[in-house]
Structure formats: C-alpha cells, structure tokens
C-alpha cells in the first residue's frame, strides 16, 4: 500500500488509528501491539501478498536467533544469522549483476535472470542485522515476539525506512506514554504527513515527467537539456525520499512513536561529510556503526581512515542497487568524503555560498550515475553537463536574444519552454531550488507550532492539495532499494 493513495489516507489510516487507541483504552498494550503488527502485515501484503511469508519467516527466524545469541553470546550463531539475512538479499538483488560480471570477466554464458525483489528487503535486512550484532554485544533490551515483530514490520517505516534501531523504538512500543491518544503528537504527525505528501505528489511527481524524458527517452542531450534533466532529478529524488520520510515520521507520531528523522536540509550542506550527516541519516548512522567502525573507523591513521570511508561508501552504493552505476556512485562519494579529510586540515576559508554550491554540484553529478540506466548513458550525460555534446539555446532564450531559431531545434527543448504541457519546468526548478536552499526543513518548520495560529489553515490546504495531486499514485523511488 502506498502512503500517497486514497485507500491509505481515507481507509487504512483512520481505521488503524481508531482501532489502535480503542484497543489501548479497552484492552491491553499487548493486544493493541498485536493489532498494529497485523495491520502492518496487511499493509505489506496489500501490494504483493506473495512475499508476506518471506518477511514472516525472516522476522521470526531472526527473533529466535537473536534470543539464542543473547543467551549464548555465540559468534558462530551471529555469523549464521548474518549469512541468513544476507543470502536472500544477495540472491534477489545481486544475482543478475553477479552473472553479468561473470560473463564480462570470465566469458561465461549465463543468461539474464530477472527476479522480483521482495518489497523493502534492503531495509528490514539491515535493521535485523543490526539487531543481531547488538544482541551479541548484549545491547538489546527486554523484548518479546510482538514488540520485535513490530520493530521490523511497523508500517510507517517498513517499506522505505527510516532504518530504525531497536533501542529507538522497542522501548516506545512497551511504554505507557504511547498508550493514550495525544492531541499534540497527532497534530505534529498530521502536519509532518501533509508536508511529506505535498513534497511527494506536488513536487516530486511533477518533476518526474521531465526526468523520464531526459534520462530515458532522448538519445543525446545538449548542455541545457542535460542540466534541466539532471537538476530535475536531483530535486525529484530529494522531494520524493524526504517526502516519504516526513510521512513516515508523521505516521509514527500519530501513534505516539518517534521515528528518527532522515533528512536535514541536505542541499544546504557545506561539504560532503556534512551532506551525509543530513541525507538519509539513518542509513549513514547504520553504515557508520556496523561497517565503518568495525573495519577500523578513524583509529588507524589518516590513510586507513580514508580507506575505511571509501569501503563504507562503496558498500553504501552497492546497497542502493545492483549495477556498475551504483558502485561508481558509492565510489565517488567515498572519494569525495575521503578527500575532504586532508582538505579540511588546510583550513582554507571558503565563503558559505561557494562551499554549498560546490557540494551541491558534486552531489548533483553523482546523482547522474545513480539515475542513468547504463554507464555509457551516465558518461554521455555528464559530458553534456560540461558542454561537450554542444549547446542549443532554448527557443525562448533565442527569442529574447534575437537569435533566429536553428532549423534542427531539438524537440525536447521545445517541450521545456515551447510546449504547452511542459513549459513550467523552469518554474518548478526555481521553486524546488528555493525550497531546498532557503526554506527550513520540516523539523525546523514544525518546532514551536503553538506560536503559529495559521497552522491549521496552512496544513489543511497543504493536505488537500497533496490529496488532489495523488491522481497518479506513483511509487516512491526508494521502494526499489
């Protein structure tokens, strides 16, 4: 089920919240938790019921392995648990990629395989591996099968994160505070949800039309086309994913569960390290705690630190998808973050605007690899960004400058500025950039809400517009990861 669907907003959500608090009032916490677990399974299975048994087996197997590890502190059991989690992820997500590499490197003749990826596998795999590692370190607190199931399957964060840590939520599920309907939390929650829905349906989904044209439909883009398409994607991805995360945080708050924030104005970052403290923060924290620190972190000198950072980001890239472009995307971020270390020691003073612009430019180039369907396509697009594939002034600019139109004017350029249905892209890009660079993020906006008398009008308007824009009910970009 999608958050941005009528069935979720008008049926699932009101029913779940009402029944949950009724059960809390009339029965026990255990029963209302069980109801949330069942609701989450229904939410998961609504889209594709075939994978429900898979996630059920995964949850209950990990629960019992976790129990055993807690009791025995057995390293082999931990290794077994990690392998058990990684094996299906490798199989479903990376088989085709590995066969492709084998064919390329060793000349094997494996045929293409296309396996349907179980929904959210990357997210619940990481959450459960963290849980097993912490069980081995005796860091897991008291839990039972219901609260563990809810920790993995809790519907607000199940499909595309944020990646929650067991210590962040299990205690909340068992807490007395979460049992009573809180008007304040509900208002905060619905405000977060409305902002997120607006980001997704109004901004991200509108930009996606231009992104698809630029990345998928056209053969070679010139300078302007490449910038329009890549910027549209840079903003689309942010609004899509941060919109999803805002909705997840909001849904959690409605049920009195604080889910960690995932975005903190990432395009206002002044360097790449700063960017990763603001972008997909829960994945960053997971990679730091369960990859970077265990392989040495910053304990063994500058060179080793740089190596560890590079490896961590490379794994982060591979986590995002099976393909050479994701590897390159991870490597570029690894190189960027590693290079920032010695550069920062030079203590060169760079104006804030310049450092934000440079960081944004680097991140933006990296997104081209992230989005492109092939390596060649990405290189072609990056070449276009630097003007290597030529310039072709948009028709309206031609007109302003008094330059006659070129006879072979490209159709896409005319789509951007000359065609009725697409002429607003520039406006969308300016609005998107203004939001990303100048407006406060959702969390900052929703602090001290009591001082904002206009808030109910503003949020009602935002939610109504978000609902009207749902028409297409598109998937979230991060569902594929």
């Amino acid at each position, binding site marked *: 089920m999608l958050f941005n669907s009528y069935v979720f907003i008008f049926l699932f959500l009101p029913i779940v919240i009402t029944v949950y608090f009724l059960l809390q009032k009339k029965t026990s916490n255990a029963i209302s938790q069980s109801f949330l677990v069942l609701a989450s399974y229904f939410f998961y299975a609504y889209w594709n019921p075939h994978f429900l048994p898979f996630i059920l087996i995964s949850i209950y197997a990990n629960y019992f392995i976790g129990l055993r590890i807690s009791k025995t502190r057995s390293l082999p059991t931990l290794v077994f648990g990690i392998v058990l989690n990684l094996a299906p992820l490798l199989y479903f997500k990376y088989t085709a990629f590995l066969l492709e590499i084998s064919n390329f490197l060793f000349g094997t003749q494996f045929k293409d395989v296309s396996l349907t990826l179980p929904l959210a596998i990357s997210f619940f795999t990481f959450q459960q591996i963290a849980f097993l590692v912490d069980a081995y370190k005796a860091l897991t607190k008291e839990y039972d099968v219901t609260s563990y199931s809810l920790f993995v399957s809790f519907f607000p964060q199940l499909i595309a994160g944020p990646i929650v840590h067991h210590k962040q939520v299990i205690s909340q599920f068992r807490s007395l505070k979460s049992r009573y309907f809180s008007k304040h939390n509900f208002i905060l929650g*619905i405000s977060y949800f409305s902002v997120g829905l607006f980001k997704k349906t109004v901004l991200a989904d509108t930009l996606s039309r231009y992104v698809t044209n630029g990345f998928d439909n056209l053969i070679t883009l010139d300078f302007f086309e490449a910038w329009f398409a890549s910027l549209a994607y840079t903003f689309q991805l942010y609004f899509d994913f941060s919109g999803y995360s805002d909705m997840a945080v909001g849904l959690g708050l409605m049920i009195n569960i604080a889910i960690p924030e995932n975005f903190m104005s990432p395009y206002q970052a002044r360097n790449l390290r700063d960017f990763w403290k603001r972008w997909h923060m829960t994945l960053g924290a997971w990679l730091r705690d369960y990859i970077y620190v265990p392989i040495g972190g910053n304990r063994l000198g500058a060179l080793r630190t740089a190596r560890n950072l590079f490896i961590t980001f490379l794994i982060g890239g591979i986590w995002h998808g099976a393909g050479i472009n994701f590897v390159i995307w991870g490597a570029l971020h690894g190189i960027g973050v590693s290079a920032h270390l010695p550069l920062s020691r030079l203590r060169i003073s760079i104006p804030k605007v310049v450092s934000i612009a440079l960081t944004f430019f680097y991140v933006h180039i990296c997104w081209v690899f992230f989005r492109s369907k092939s390596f060649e396509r990405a290189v072609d697009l990056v070449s276009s960004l630097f003007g290597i594939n030529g310039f072709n002034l948009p028709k309206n600019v031609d007109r302003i400058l008094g330059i006659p139109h070129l006879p072979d004017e490209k159709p896409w350029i005319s789509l951007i500025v000359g065609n*009725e249905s697409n002429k607003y892209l520039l406006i969308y890009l300016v609005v998107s950039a203004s939001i990303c660079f100048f407006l406060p993020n959702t969390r900052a906006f929703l602090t001290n809400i009591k001082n904002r008398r206009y808030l109910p009008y503003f*949020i009602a308007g935002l939610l*109504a517009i978000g*609902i009207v*824009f749902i*028409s297409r009910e598109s998937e979230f970009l991060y569902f594929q990861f």
Partner: protein
Amino acid sequence: MKTFESRFLFIFFPLLFLILFLLAAFNFVVDPGDIYLKKASLFSENKLSIQNAELSLFNSFERSKVGLAFEGNERVFSNALAKHKKNMDCVILGSSRAMQISSIRSRHLNRLCTNTLNLGVSGGSLEDIFIYVQLLTQNNNLPRIVFIEVSPWTLKWNMDIRFLYNADILSSFLEENRISKPGYTVKNYKISLLKNLINLEYTKASLLKLYQHKFKLTFLSDTAFLENLVYSENIANLENMILTKPVRIKDGSLVYQKSFTDTNKTGLSYNEPPAYNLSGPFFEDSAVDTLSNTIEKLGHRNVEIYLVLTPYHESSFRPEHAAYSKYLIAVEKKTREIARTHNIKLLGSYSPSKVGCRPEQFYDFMHPTSECVDLIFK
C-alpha cells in the same frame, strides 16, 4: 479558552473536508467528461434526461455539415449514434485503435461500404463490442456489415472499466444470451467515480470547460454550445486545420486536435514499450466463446462480420519489447483461428509491414493514422 490543539483540530478537519467537498461538488456539476449524467434529476427545471440529451446531441450532429467537436464522454456520443443513426450499411466496433477507420477519408473502405458508422471508443474492450451489438439490435439498427476491431486485449474480460458507463446495456446483453457475469468490477467503477471527483486532471478539465463556456453550466458537454462548434469547412481540409478539439466527423470516426498530434509527432511515445493493457494470459476461452457466439448470432441475422487488426508501430516489435510483442503475435494468431473457424474474413495485421504502414503513419506506438488504417481495406 480552547487550547492550541483543540483549536487546530476544530479548524483543520472541517476545513480539509470542506475544501475536498467543494472541489468534488464543482467537478460533479461541471463534469467535463459527462460521467456523472445520473445527476440529470438535479437539472429538473430543464427537464433534461440522458435520453433527450443524447437525442439533442445526435440532432446537432445530423445538422452539422462535417461533424462535431466533442471532448465529453465518447460513449455518450457513440450511444447517441447507435440509437438514432439510420440506414448505415457498415458499422465499426472497437477501441481507439479503430477510431480512424473512416469511409469519408478512405480511398479503399468505400468499396465495401457507402454509409459507414464508426462506434469505436477510447478504452474499448470486449464488453464495449457486446454493448454496441446490443444497442444496435435493440434499436433495429443492425447494418449489413460489422467490422470488429480486435485489439490485443479484446479476447479477455474486464480489461478496462470505462465500459461500465454502459453496465445496464451489457447486463441485458449477457442476460439475453444467458452468459453468467464474469465478475464485473462495478464496485471498482463506482470507487473510481468517487476518486475522480477530487482528481487533479478532472479539475483542470472542469476549469477549462467552465472558462470555454463563459462560466455557464451545462448538463452534457457542449450541448448548449454545439451550434457554435459545428464545422462547415470542407472535410478534406479538416485534418490540416488547427483543431483545438477532437472532431467526430459524419461517419463517426475521429479527427484528433492539433495538440494531440503535435505532442505525438515529437516521436517520444514511439519509444515507449507497447505495454498498454498487455499482461496476464493472451486470451480467455470464455471471452473467445462469447465473441464466437455473437459472431454466429449476427450471422444468422444476415450480418456479415469482418475481424480487423490495426497495426502497431514498428518499434513495438523491437527485441527489447519482446515481452509485449509476444502478445501481439499470439492474439493475431488466435484471431486468425477465430476467423477460420467461423469462415469470416480477417483484414489487417498488428504488423505494420504486412499492412504497408510507414513509421510516420502513427500517432504513437499503438494508434495508426487514418492513412495507415485505410491500407487495411486495400
């Protein structure tokens, strides 16, 4: 004094539902797609009903020299034609892929027919074919020849929901032919109608309609304004004119508006995989049986049947689209088998090269131009 929280909730929910309700009411009343026609009773002062609105539409159509600009519900238009148009010798049934079949614009079709009526509709499915067979039969309007355009999804039930506008007519067809209802999604259709009331695109269309009609409300799209929109120009020039709306010309076929043909001329949509409605099994036996029985029954009433396959763009047959082109191959094979079994003629093919259509003779990957479909009747 109310707390901030109580005040928020007191304002927020009523305001949210008021906004959505007003929007839904606006779309319901303006109704640019003519899909909420059952609200006729709300217009009691005009004594309008769906029936006389259809008749009014048909009369305007008849008075026109060339045809009518019409952007409303195509099924309303086709229903009006099926009920009231007389003396045609050929009828075309099918989807939007058949809407370019035209005896007026054709050089070849008029060897078979002198007075043709095209009842193709967007999203046309198997059910639409039965609906129009039923309407023609009920109105004693059966022609000498019926062309049934078979799209790759036609040999299955429930491949679209738009036919549910005519759910009552379909029910009477199924009852008369003693066919059990194959699980129609009437509920889904009603939910779709509800969702549509707060749909962005529908709202845009409502605003546009209201603006074009100088903020006057009408019951059925254009009925109050038809006289202004009747085209009196020479039909040969129609396709070269800058049309702002699609025009149903006198044989029922459709001439698209310029914005549609322009968008598609960019060639972008040629590159799309031909995925539209191609999933699941190639065909369903019960659907094929029902179509076969209908062909037999029409044959008994001295109606000659032709099955027609209109081509897809050549890009649809590229190797990377094999997952979809396999449907085209399998359904074409099955359609030929049906034609052989019933000893009826089959015209055309999904393959553009077999028909002789050039790549530029398409609006997109699945909609051939009238020039292309004309070659089918060569």
